[in-house]
């Protein structure tokens, strides 16, 4: 027990813990507004306040909570509820493959803890702070700094929304603050042509595929954007290829690596006889 307390203390005192707090502070206003609206919406689907608080604390996934509550309200069977939540959460499975690059040296129990508390916005902040996907010692305190603030800024407003459900009208559109927070995060990720085009493709795909059930339009958008990003990278590589002439003595042998490049059309080959 004492070792656990000591571990928490060293994590909290690490300067990286404060970087994590600082990086999440700006978006926390939007996340809080979104949490408030989610709390109100949960109660509006007919859930009692204690059950809504229990759900928020256990599930900790806003989009999945809002997706399954209408199903539960009409008495859908459990497997439908769970399948729906799994589909809404599919994007996290993709993110977890990248989390692994940072946290694979940790013991499994800690990896699971990291996974449970990793939301979308933490993921983006983390990727920006540590663009090199390799483990570093300051990543663990950084993660817990970001994750603890994110948890507080989500749970406190959500529970407030649950308790004040009848005084906060959804028609005010406070949830738009959450959209704006994500918009700010998204704009901070657009730095080159490939990322702009990938975002435009994702937006188009998400709107075009909106009628799909279970929020599968998000998955369609990810697939479309990954494809677009890879195509743009390939096209850029093709265009950036500088014309380069390989000079080889006419009676000399072409090294195998160079022969391969010539055969692929990367480099034109010219044989000249020099005195």
């Amino acid at each position, binding site marked *: 027990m004492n070792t656990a307390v000591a571990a928490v203390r060293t994590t909290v005192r690490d300067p990286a813990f404060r970087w994590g707090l600082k990086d999440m502070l700006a*978006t926390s*206003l939007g996340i809080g507004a979104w949490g408030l609206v989610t709390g109100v919406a949960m109660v509006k689907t*007919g859930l*009692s306040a204690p*059950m809504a608080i229990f759900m928020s604390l*256990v*599930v900790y*996934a806003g989009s*999945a909570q809002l997706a399954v509550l209408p199903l*539960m309200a009409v*008495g859908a069977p*459990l497997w439908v509820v769970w399948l729906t*939540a799994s589909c809404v*959460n*599919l*994007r*996290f499975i993709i*993110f977890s*493959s*990248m*989390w*692994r690059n940072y*946290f*694979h040296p940790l013991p*499994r129990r800690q*990896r*699971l803890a*990291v*996974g*449970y508390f990793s939301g*979308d916005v933490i*993921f*983006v902040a983390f990727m920006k702070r540590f663009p090199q996907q390799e483990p570093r010692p300051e990543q663990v305190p950084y993660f817990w700094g970001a994750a603890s603030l994110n948890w507080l800024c989500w749970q406190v407003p959500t529970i407030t929304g649950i308790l004040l459900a009848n005084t906060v009208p959804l028609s*005010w*559109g406070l949830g*738009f*603050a959450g*959209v*704006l*927070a*994500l*918009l*700010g995060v*998204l*704009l901070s*990720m657009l730095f080159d042509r490939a990322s702009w085009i*990938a*975002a435009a*493709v*994702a*937006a188009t*795909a*998400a*709107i075009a595929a909106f*009628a799909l059930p279970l929020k599968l339009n998000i998955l369609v*958008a990810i697939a479309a*954007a*990954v494809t677009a*990003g*890879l195509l743009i990278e390939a096209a850029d590589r093709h265009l950036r290829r500088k014309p380069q002439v390989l000079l080889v003595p006419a009676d000399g042998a072409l090294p195998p690596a160079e022969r391969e490049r010539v055969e692929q059309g990367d480099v034109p080959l010219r044989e000249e006889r020099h005195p």
Partner: protein
Amino acid sequence: MSWSFDWSWVEPTIAFLGLGVITLISRSFFMIPERELAMPDWLKRGLKYAPLAALTAVIAPELFMTQGEFIHTLRDARLPGALCAAAYYFCRRDILGTIVIGMAVYLPLHIGWGW
């Protein structure tokens, strides 16, 4: 308020505990095995566009759709709100200010004018 009386509290409790397990498993999915699952190189490179795409896919319908349909009118408070917020972001690179400016444009138009 109907089903919280029809259902006993047991069934939603089981449902919520199961949903918590789903959160845990989906968010740590590839971190669960001890050994890394082999993934082709092109997929690893391509996946760096996934977070950006997921965010865009959440935001775009929130900005451009109403009741599951593409917006019919430009008189929608979300558009000037998002435009001003984006403009502010590119000037200052500050997310907190982006939220405040966007809401300052959005709320009067939405509540006051009913856009």
